[in-house]
């Protein structure tokens, strides 16, 4: 849980309370509790069909929730829609404007709809997005990136405090993705709050300071990106067998490490991935000299895959440096889906796949953790071996 969310007196820009949407008997969104603070670049991360767009639709009043409510700027969208939308702009799903109108005419339509009549502002918005030269061309002749930029230009006409972007880089080429990414950063630098949904983990990690991970309609993790990843980082040490117990005792009292625990021939020090030098010095002062020090920093992608219990397709996910065969603690059996190749694929070389993280991150009390035991979700799959047995120590992976 993030202390700033529970104790801060600042009103969240977006806050959903047990927001749910059910179509027939299927909960598309189930008890979603989100909090976005002023100035955040918030990423709602989840695979396609997880419920991201439905949450956005409920936040904007496009869809009525089955239960729960969405508060924007402290007011319920169901009762204070006008005041909220006056300060909010959104692009939901694909960028859509009037195909038969020129970029300029589209800007005029959007301006009239928003009650803006200042043409200078329209020109400025078009110029900011680099579309002045194509303003007379029809929207239907624009590339996807240009359409996205025109929609953002139209969204900025009302000078919104909150900008909601649903999968803003979908279908864009790398240059387009880069420009949207820069744009999001510049919007944040202007003091605006940006709420974006995406299934692109790299994109979210690069631009967002806070994320929520959603799967099958349920928020399974939420918090500051930095804290979420820090909660999962650790360092693994190999020390001579005769010094093993002494090393654990020495490391357990460190203030910057959450825990030190044995894992096969290794000692895992949680939360200390960036403190390798200090750990080494501490051990040296105790007369212990580790033969290996392996820091593990999780990327958001790894974190996402771990909390959503997803496997990694072969070839698509080379292990990052220092993320090779590492021990898995026998005393904390991983209960999610084991990592490995999909059925039918040949087994990869030993050590190809990273191991699941040690324990799960749970953003808030009552939020489901690693085990996938959240309401409405299927029971966790049977534990299966990863290149052997995921519960065995490193010697089994050799």
């Amino acid at each position, binding site marked *: 849980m993030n202390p700033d969310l529970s104790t801060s007196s600042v009103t969240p820009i977006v806050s959903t309370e047990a927001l749910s949407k059910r179509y027939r008997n299927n909960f598309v969104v189930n008890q979603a509790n989100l909090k976005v603070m002023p100035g955040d670049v918030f990423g709602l991360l989840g695979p396609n069909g997880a419920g991201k767009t439905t949450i956005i*639709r409920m936040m*904007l*009043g*496009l*869809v*009525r929730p089955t239960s729960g409510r969405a508060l924007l700027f402290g007011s319920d969208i169901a009762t204070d*829609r*006008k005041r909220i*939308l*006056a300060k*909010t*702009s*959104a*692009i*939901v*799903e*694909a960028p*859509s*404007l*009037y*195909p*038969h*109108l020129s970029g300029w*005419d589209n800007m*005029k*339509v*959007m301006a*009239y*709809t*928003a*009650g803006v*009549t200042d043409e200078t502002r329209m020109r400025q918005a078009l110029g900011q997005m680099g579309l002045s030269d194509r303003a007379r061309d029809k929207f239907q002749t624009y590339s996807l990136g240009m359409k996205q930029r025109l*929609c953002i230009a*139209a969204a900025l006409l*009302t000078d919104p405090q909150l900008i909601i972007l649903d999968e803003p880089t979908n279908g864009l080429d790398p240059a387009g993705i880069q420009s949207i990414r820069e744009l999001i950063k510049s919007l944040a630098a202007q003091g605006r709050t940006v709420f974006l949904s995406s299934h692109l983990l790299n994109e979210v990690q690069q631009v967002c300071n806070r994320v929520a991970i959603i799967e099958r309609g349920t928020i399974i993790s939420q918090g500051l990106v930095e804290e979420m990843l820090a909660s999962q980082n650790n360092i693994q040490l190999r020390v001579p067998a005769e010094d093993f117990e002494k090393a654990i005792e020495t490391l357990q009292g460190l203030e910057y490490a959450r825990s030190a625990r044995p894992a096969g021939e290794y000692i895992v020090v949680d939360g200390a991935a960036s403190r390798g030098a200090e750990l080494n010095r501490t051990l040296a002062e105790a007369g212990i000299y580790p033969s290996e020090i392996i820091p593990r920093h999780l990327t958001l992608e790894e974190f996402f895959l771990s909390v959503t219990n997803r496997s990694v397709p072969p070839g698509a996910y080379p292990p990052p440096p220092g993320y090779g065969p590492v021990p898995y603690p026998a005393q904390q059996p991983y209960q999610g889906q084991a990592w490995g190749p999909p059925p039918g694929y040949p087994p990869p070389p030993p050590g190809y796949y990273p191991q699941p993280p040690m324990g799960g991150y749970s953003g808030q009390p009552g939020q489901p953790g690693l085990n996938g035991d959240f309401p409405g979700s299927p029971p966790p799959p049977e534990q299966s071996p990863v290149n052997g047995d995921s519960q065995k120590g490193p010697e089994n992976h050799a």
Partner: protein
Amino acid sequence: MLNLLRAEILKYSRLKLILFIAFSPVLITLLVVGAMLILKVAGVDFGNIPVGGVGLLEIGGGTFGLAANIIIVGVNGIYLIGLVITGAMVGSNEYGWHTIKMLATREASRPRLMLSKTLFLLTMAVFMAGMAALCWLFMGLLFKAIYDAGDTGNLDGDAIGKGLLYLLFSFGVNFLWSSMAMFLAVRFKSVVVAIIFYFIVNTLDGIVSSLGEAALSGQLGTNFPNWLEPLINVAKFISPFLVNFSLNQLTVTPTNRNFVESVPAVQSILVLLAWIGLYIWAAVAVFRRRDITE
């Protein structure tokens, strides 16, 4: 609301089909006048201009009566279907363009958005009526030259007054049907479905109205099978509240055999206004409550 209307006008003024519909009175006038001038130049004798009424409708006589018969009454079906198509497009195009989400997340409330579309439809109907009126007056003046009718004085004044009233009622009903098409398009999110429903509803309304008119004006006689009697009684009861019945009451001459004296003009006007209000309310109600998932 004015800005929302401006936005609607800008959206649709760039569509060729809408422009074609809006200026259809001009196009039809050019066709008719062009053809008549060619025939006149070719030496065709058009005969005498009818001085009395040109039909069973209250549109007067003389050159303006004749022009009204052509450009207002004769091609009203074209104006009507044009406005019905416009209504259906206004109701469903935002879904087809995928702009409905963007529109519904603006500050303006959904009822205001729908009312601005209705206002655009009304603007379109008024514009077309204005175009038709100008074309009619132009055609009336031109006919004077073609027919060599000279000064027809009071006859022209009477025909212009009656013609304008007919124009008001006919375009009022055109707007009514286009409002219905807009409501159906909002409901079904489809231009085609809205137009098909319009034809079904208008046909049923017309059949029941005709049956009711005939029964109420004593034209039906008594020589019909017994099983038909309950249906005729129903038609007699409901037809004064139908669109075609009300329009006929307002536009036919009192000597028309289907004119029902017992139904006052005020009632017919109120019936038409009530239908317009009902369709607009229905469109707003459907749009207001809908989950937008497109």
